[in-house]
């Protein structure tokens, strides 16, 4: 049975009710119908699923799906973003009968999901990255992502409150828009506490470079930076280095507070269990799956780690106030007049870009106060 977009419109509201915290931006996609037995759901990870970071965050979501009745979860780790992932997906459909596949790495989508999905209309391919384009991409593909920069903004407030030197550090993999948005939101959050604060960025060049990340952390600390956050696949090494050298750290992807009991301030985390169980429930109930699902703190797709012991009361109050504004939906991070770190006005006065604004998806600047550049 195929449900077309028009006939299923009423269920749009129903789903909003069921997943009341999820923001639906787009139309619906047809749900594959499954008959008898457990629903087979596949997860594909680009690295090790116990990496204390990106892949682990997704694997926690898979664990939550495993706990659901009537579902069989199949997983593959360390699948590179080549033809290998196409073959893995096809193998999951052909040999295991998967009805829903979550290829969780950003690079899996184009061209891999785009070329496999049309061959298997009976299976849904939901990709972490928010890249779906209505009308252009296959009907049984979809994409979801969270505005994790909202959690980074809160983390920035906490970092700004905790920093004594007024210098923050950000260890980043590559200068891509998502990364720049995290760096900017973190910095803007910190500047809301202390306008003079700066963030020094170091790009390591790749998603998992343990030695380089440790070296970057040490270099930053030598420059007098006293709070470091990051956007790399596995933040463990950086958090541990910060703790050893006695400075504060703010985590990413998953909760790393156990690695730095003294210096861990907070962190920006994904909440994939809620998203994944939501999708699987829709599939089980035969409801159409959304093509594009995005959300932030309000929708519960992202969250902050609990505040660490080093965070002061006033800072907590400031952070909680900002969080309340996000929850109420009236927080705007990017509003004019905003200048980049070369002095150009990137958002003119009186203009404000809400989180859903498409312009933010192609961010190519670092805001004033960030030390670093967007080239390679």
């Amino acid at each position, binding site marked *: 049975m195929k449900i077309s977009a028009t006939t299923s419109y009423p269920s749009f509201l129903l789903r909003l009710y069921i997943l009341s915290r999820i923001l639906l931006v787009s139309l619906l996609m047809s749900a594959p119908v499954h008959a008898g037995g457990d629903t087979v759901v596949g997860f594909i990870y680009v690295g090790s699923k116990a990496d204390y970071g990106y892949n682990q965050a997704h694997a926690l979501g898979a664990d939550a799906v495993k706990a659901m009745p009537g579902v069989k979860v199949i997983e593959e780790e360390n699948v590179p973003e080549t033809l290998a992932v196409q*073959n893995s997906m096809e*193998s999951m459909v052909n040999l295991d009968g998967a009805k829903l596949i979550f290829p969780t790495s950003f690079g899996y989508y184009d061209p891999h999901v785009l070329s496999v999905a049309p061959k298997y209309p009976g299976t849904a391919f939901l990709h972490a990255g928010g890249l779906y384009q209505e009308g252009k991409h296959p009907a049984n593909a979809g994409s979801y992502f969270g505005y994790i920069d909202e959690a980074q903004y809160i983390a920035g407030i906490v970092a700004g409150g905790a920093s004594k030197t007024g210098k923050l550090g950000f260890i980043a993999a590559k200068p891509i828009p998502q990364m720049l948005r995290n760096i900017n939101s973190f910095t803007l959050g910190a500047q809301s506490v202390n306008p003079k604060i700066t963030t020094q960025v170091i790009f390591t060049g790749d998603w998992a470079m343990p030695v380089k990340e440790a070296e970057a952390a040490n270099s930053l600390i030598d420059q007098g930076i006293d709070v470091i956050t990051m956007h790399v696949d596995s933040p463990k090494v950086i958090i541990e280095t910060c703790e050893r050298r006695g400075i504060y750290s703010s985590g990413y992807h998953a909760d790393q507070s156990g690695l730095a009991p003294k210096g861990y301030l907070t962190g920006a985390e994904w909440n994939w269990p809620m998203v994944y169980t939501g999708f699987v429930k829709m599939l089980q109930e035969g409801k159409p799956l959304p093509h594009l699902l995005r959300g932030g703190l309000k929708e519960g797709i992202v969250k902050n780690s609990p505040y660490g012991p080093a965070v002061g009361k006033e800072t907590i109050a400031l952070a909680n106030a900002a969080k309340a504004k996000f929850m109420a939906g009236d927080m705007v991070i990017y509003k004019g007049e905003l200048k980049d770190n070369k002095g150009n006005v990137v958002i003119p006065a009186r203009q404000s870009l809400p989180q859903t604004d498409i312009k933010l998806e192609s961010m190519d600047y670092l805001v004033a106060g960030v030390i670093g550049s967007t080239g390679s």
Partner: protein
Amino acid sequence: MKALVTAAAVAFENLLIPICALLASLLLFGMFLACLGNDPFEVFHTMYRGGFGSLFSWRNTLERAAPLMLTALCTALPAQLGLIVIGGEGALVAGGLVAAMTGLVCGSFAPWFVLLAMLAAAIVAGGCWIAMTGWLKYYRGVNETIASLLFNYIAIALLNHLVTGPLRDPQSLNKPSTPPIGNANMLGDMPGLGVHWGLMFGLSACIVFYVIFFRTTFGFAVRIAGGNLRAAKIVGLPVGRLTLITCFAGGAAAGLAGGIEVAAIHGTANATLAAGYGYAGILVAFLARQNPLAVIPVALILGGINASAGLLQRTHHLPDAAVQILQGMIFMMVLFSETYYGRLQALFESRRAA
């Protein structure tokens, strides 16, 4: 008659020993699995199902084998000269990067021309990349194994620098890439098979290079130089030129693999080009005992093993590294079996004498 028997013995030996080595390594791997509480027969059955058990599995295997055939040649051809080159990864990256750039430059021409130009550029780029190693070896005395390894790191750094910087398509938001070459210019699938044309290129390259290196005067000269450098120089063979040409040929094959990755799969050059095909090719070349023709079946076997890796994770919950262990075991066994060549032949001859 005696010569015929000896030839038969050699051929038999060339077939029997690798098969025994393969079986021995499977036995070893089976024991390893059994020690960990897995049923080895079930695992082997799963591997068969994942690699060769169905039409889909075959397609999966063939697609994985195609780049390995080309990157294996990057090690196998210089090996005819006695050089151990492990720079396939770098040559693949260089070929892919240059192919993508060529695709952009000629974007306005007819698709067949764009494709031809891209693949030719990839061949030249990969060839020159490894020829540099050959040049360093012959004219500067720099060890080729280490130089080619260093060139891998340098190629990957250049690729990353260019695709995140000067050559980056501003539209490739969160996956820095060069601008796409366009769907019209992509290399399609072979009709009826559902496998891209790279397979055809791989097969033909193996056959062509086999003929060149084992059936022509040029190949004979190369192998003489590989067997005894001093003798080759005394005979007056242009060893320097042979080195450059052979290294170029090996690099060209790996470069072509990179060009095909761009033209048939990604449509752009980005960091995923360095996915390890070059390193897997080294394994294939050694397992094939550096024989271009033997590269074909070995690439198929390894492609099949790789194709079954995912199914092993899913059905038996074996870590992804299980396949790596198996490959390591096969590799060691095949190398170990080298020591048995010639013994069978000796056995035949002693029987006849008796």
